[in-house]
């Protein structure tokens, strides 16, 4: 691992930073509920489409304060949703403030939030949505959902691709024919249409947890085909190696040769392939949620934060901060792409 990091760093500094950035980001989204100022579901009904809260150091009399603070805001014009700051009271930003009780890390119940301001003021780093929910908190929570779906999905495809690709390549003959025809047929459809059609097989009103697993299922069902084809090709060439013949003459079973001696040799490639294909899963999940077919309200995902802007020029014009969800997707994708490119070179045995 250390060796790998050193090689990655030597190959390109940027990809090394991308690697750590992604690790940090995954940690952040896993511990999202420890970091957010509000629960994803908490609504400030009198503050819909609130722009990002201004954080002040200097009050309106020109006095400097070492502790940053915010002003409470009230709606000025309900049609254009403009807000005015009320300069009479300062609300300093505090650590460990009390709020509504929520569950942290799926188990613990707590009232404490890492940071925040006293009510009725609010600290909305990225503004609020139509119900006055804090976008920053929803983005962090949404990252947990979007990133975990893509991770689980890619792992399932990986296992499926390994099994089918390994079988097809190693045993050849009729198994190979059948499996590869299946893969080809699956790859005939443009993935978006296949995704929507598969989604149409299930009722639209599923519970959130059902939808979550449904999306994982659909994405991995679409994704395994490409992996299987590549792994098959690799297995085809590896099985001609002398050490496979040696293992065979030592009396190892086919199963053992495949699992312990051939498939591990495809790992360096598959890790690259996984890194390159994660973006596809993130886009798939976001696209489904964006269209209202994925993660349902009130649970946030990067796709469904964007969904209120689709086909609604007024919302998109009034509350462009909703588009930050797209920026999050973009940042994650570009890091995966940079890392994937670097891994392709670093993990290639030819370059060792």
């Amino acid at each position, binding site marked *: 691992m250390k060796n790998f990091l050193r090689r990655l760093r030597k190959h390109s500094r940027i990809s090394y930073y991308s690697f750590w950035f992604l690790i940090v980001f995954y940690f952040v989204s896993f511990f999202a509920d420890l970091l957010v100022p509000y629960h994803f579901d908490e609504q400030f009904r009198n503050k819909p489409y609130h722009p990002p809260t201004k954080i002040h150091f200097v009050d309106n009399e020109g006095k400097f304060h070492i502790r940053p603070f915010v002003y409470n805001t009230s709606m000025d014009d309900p049609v254009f949703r403009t807000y005015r700051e009320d300069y009479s009271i300062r609300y300093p930003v505090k650590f460990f403030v009390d709020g509504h009780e929520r569950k942290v890390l799926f188990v613990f119940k707590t009232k404490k939030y890492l940071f925040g301001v006293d009510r009725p003021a609010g600290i909305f780093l990225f503004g609020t949505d139509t119900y006055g929910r804090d976008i920053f908190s929803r983005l962090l929570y949404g990252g947990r959902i979007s990133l975990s779906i893509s991770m689980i999905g890619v792992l399932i495809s990986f296992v499926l691709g390994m099994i089918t690709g390994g079988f097809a390549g190693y045993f050849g003959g009729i198994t190979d024919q059948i499996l590869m*025809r299946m893969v080809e047929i699956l790859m005939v*459809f443009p993935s978006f*249409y296949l995704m929507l059609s598969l989604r*149409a*097989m299930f009722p639209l009103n599923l519970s959130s947890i059902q939808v979550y697993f449904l999306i994982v299922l659909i994405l991995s069902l679409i994704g395994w085909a490409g992996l299987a084809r590549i792994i098959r090709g690799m297995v085809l060439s590896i099985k001609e190696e002398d050490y496979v013949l040696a293992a065979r003459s030592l009396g190892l079973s086919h199963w053992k040769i495949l699992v312990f001696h051939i498939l591990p040799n495809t790992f360096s490639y598959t890790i690259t392939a996984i890194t390159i294909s994660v973006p596809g899963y993130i886009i798939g999940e976001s*696209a489904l949620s964006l269209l209202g077919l994925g993660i349902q309200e009130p649970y946030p995902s990067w796709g469904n934060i964007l969904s209120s802007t*689709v086909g609604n*020029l007024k919302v998109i014009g009034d509350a462009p901060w909703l588009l930050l969800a797209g920026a999050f*997707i973009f940042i994650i*994708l570009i890091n995966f792409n940079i890392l994937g490119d670097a891994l392709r070179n670093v993990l290639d045995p030819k370059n060792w």
Partner: protein
Amino acid sequence: MKKLVLKRLLQVVPLLIGMSFVSFIIIQSSPGDYFAQMKMNPEISPSTIEHMKTSFGLDRPVIVQYLMWVKNICRFDFGVSFAYHIPVRTLIKFRVKNTLCLAVFSIFLSWMIAVPLAVLAGYREGSWFDKLFSLLAYISISLPSFFVALLFVYFISKTGVLPLGGTRSVFDISAGSFTIFKDYLRHLLVPGLVLCFVNTGWLFRLMKNNFVEVFNTPYILAAWARGLPAGSVIFKHTLRNALNPMFTILGMEIGNILNGAALTEIICGWPGMGSLVLEAVLSHDLYLVMGSLVISGFLLIIGNLIGDILLAFFDPRIRLS
């Protein structure tokens, strides 16, 4: 050449069969009876339903149903949409035309942009020009089409320079066909540019890699050594060979474009296949979903076919082997 095309056409047949079978299975395993909703609709008489049942053979075994369904599909009969109450064919025909216009427009535009830039960047590999455009390509690859579309929509909602949604805003009957065409193009511009932006990045990268690969081969060195002018080396000897692999990815590109187009259409309000299939899924219009799925798969197969034939046409190594 003829033999090659014929062989390639024959390979398509099992794919078509498999594709139709998968589509059929997807729709068969969907919950709810197609006719359950129609029976509740007083506008549709029971005799119509009976007629449809026999025409689709829904009272027979599944395999017979499949065969009858395929027979209907070969005549482009995809059944009746129960959200719109008109034949799916009529709906799809109009939408496919729009999606194809969008796809052709954006593919053409992105080739026109990507190939010259890639040649320039590949010719001067490592220069600031190369670095700048490689960075832009990275950004273009990492931007999801729906996000670009949303950014465009935001931009247009602020400036209003281009029309958004639909295919026309001139409803004057006396308008000449040229006015209508111009209007259509103006509406095409927003989704077209979005798709072009998303598509150009990876085309640029592929093209640049191909170009650099060919540019570093010994026969190019030989061409330089013989004192051929730069234009001849670059365009006649390098570019032609570097372009060949690009035709094979045409099929993949059409797949990408169809995926991207679907989301872009939905966000930009362009009435194409993508927005149709979304409406169909939301209203549980199964025959429409199935029709769109079959057509989209069909388009992808055709795209791959065209790519292979073009490759054979341009690459004598394949044509003559």
